[in-house]
């Protein structure tokens, strides 16, 4: 995260880290159920074998295991069948864990929006991740407040690339607070009534975040995928 700050441990209990040897943390992910999490499809390019992955929950400092940390193996990776790596469209995947997490105050799922519940332009939401900070990679989870940007406005920043209904933009024209390499798959969450947080986006792509090319970040629009997510979970829980 560029322009963010270090998070307090446990503040984002749905944030998880997708890790693979020997690199360790590769992408962020978001817990949406006891056995299910979301991340982006591009994290699995060249490594879509479930066996090479582990998922770490309840962690703040990647370099220091915490007593609240839980680790699970990956049972199944479900890539969106329309994922297009050339234009980074339909950049979403569902991950099934080999066993359920134990829900604690440090490890909790986030809410999914309803299929007609959209992030409203000009509202402020949060992104989190262990991605690049512009000058270094952090050990501790970073958080940043970003503004939701309308699709038309976002398109004007990315003339060379089409912003589709599967994408959501958030951040600032000046790029002051933005997601960056290593944040992919992590959450863009907005606070709803009664202090409940809903997942509207997954960090997907943007301009080269620590260069002088500025603009907002582009996130996979979770609202667009809610029906697909629910059906995949149902299918793999009850039918397959």
């Amino acid at each position, binding site marked *: 995260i560029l322009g963010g700050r270090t998070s307090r441990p446990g503040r984002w209990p749905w944030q998880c880290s997708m890790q693979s040897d020997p690199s360790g943390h590769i992408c962020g992910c978001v817990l*949406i159920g006891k056995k299910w999490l979301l991340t982006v499809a591009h994290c699995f390019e060249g490594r879509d074998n479930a066996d090479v992955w582990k998922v770490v929950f309840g962690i703040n400092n990647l370099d220091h295991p915490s007593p609240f940390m839980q680790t699970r193996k990956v049972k199944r990776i479900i890539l969106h069948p329309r994922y297009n790596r050339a234009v980074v469209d339909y950049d979403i995947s569902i991950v099934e864990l080999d066993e359920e997490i134990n829900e604690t105050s440090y490890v*909790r799922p986030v809410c999914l929006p309803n299929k007609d519940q959209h992030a409203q332009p000009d509202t402020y939401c949060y992104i989190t991740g262990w991605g690049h900070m512009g000058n270094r990679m952090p050990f501790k989870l970073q958080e940043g407040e970003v503004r939701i940007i309308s699709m038309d406005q976002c398109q004007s920043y990315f003339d060379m690339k089409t912003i589709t209904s599967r994408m959501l933009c958030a951040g600032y024209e000046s790029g002051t607070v933005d997601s960056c390499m290593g944040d992919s798959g992590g959450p863009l969450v907005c606070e709803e009534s009664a*202090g*409940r947080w809903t997942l509207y986006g997954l960090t997907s792509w943007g301009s080269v975040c620590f260069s002088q090319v500025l603009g907002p970040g582009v996130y996979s629009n979770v609202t667009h995928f809610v029906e697909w997510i629910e059906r995949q979970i149902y299918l793999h829980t009850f039918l397959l």
Partner: protein
Amino acid sequence: CRDTFCPGGCSDNIACDNHSNSMNCSRCEPITLELCMNLPYNFTSYPNYLGHQTQKETSISWESSLFPALVQTNCYKYLMFFACTVLVPKCDLETHKRVPPCRSLCKNSKELCESVLAIVGLQWPEDTDCTQFPEENSGNETCLMPDQGVEECSPSHFKCNSGRCVLASRRCDGQTDCDDDSDEENCGCTERGLWECPSNKGCIKHTMICDGFPDCPDLADEKNCSFCKDNEKVCNNHECVHRSVWCDGKTDCSDSSDEWDCVTLSKTPSSLLTIHKSASDYQVCADNWQEELSMLACKQMGLGDLPTTHIVQDQHDQPGRRKWLHLSSDWRHKNGSTLQALLVKGHVCWSRSKVSLHCVKEDCGRRPAARMTKR
């Protein structure tokens, strides 16, 4: 020709096909050179003014690449017309002789475009000495001058609003090629080889039509995709399956959509458990109902697994058989993990009561409260 001997300039010529001798080789032939298909004449005669013996030779010649490239510089409006008069000279259908371009056409082309070529270090084609062509209105000899309406660009080129010609394949490709961007104006879906959504004029690939994923806002790309019989129901991916297998606990549509949304709760305050079996809605008889089945129902709906079950007495007097589903007597031994697989039709509901459920949504989206410390 009959003896397989074709002298130069006569091969592939009508004259040979007619077994004539080589004296009449200079014949008119239809223009096939794609570059020059929009000329005000359709027949040519070879050899041309550049010494090419056939249109095939012309098509792979250096000049065939040079002239279209030069046209893009907009150096002379009638350059392409001149180029074609030397590449595929007009054939006079009466005399079977070539009709040359007029000298002024040649001179204008050379004067205006030779300097452009020089900038990139290229030379004007040597064989186009303008003095070989007659002056306009010089006695009996006729020559070609462009009409006002002559197309500057060949059919393989798009004419920009500025007059420049760019390759037609570059029209509507998302990149501007005309200096005035006109090659990217009025780019409909058809021009881009795409399908147009009727409601918002958005363009989608043809492969996206009827693929089970809606792309147009009004779902037009997913309409009229299947023609199922009356006793069939359409899957999300437009396959047809028999109504009787809808929500039977086994996947029949290849995308499993026949087993989606089979378990719901009625919108009434009593929140009756409703099963969409065989493409009809049924309520569930409470005979032999077990709490674990309520849990299964809620889990299937993506809700929490601690439901409250109520048994609601049916208001009708008769223990009717219609619109009821009954728990199968051997449901514990049934090989099915969905509720709909455990329920059967056609049994009497002796208790005359239905299952009503209140599922609790699993908690989500809550952060732990910040710990408070004395200061």
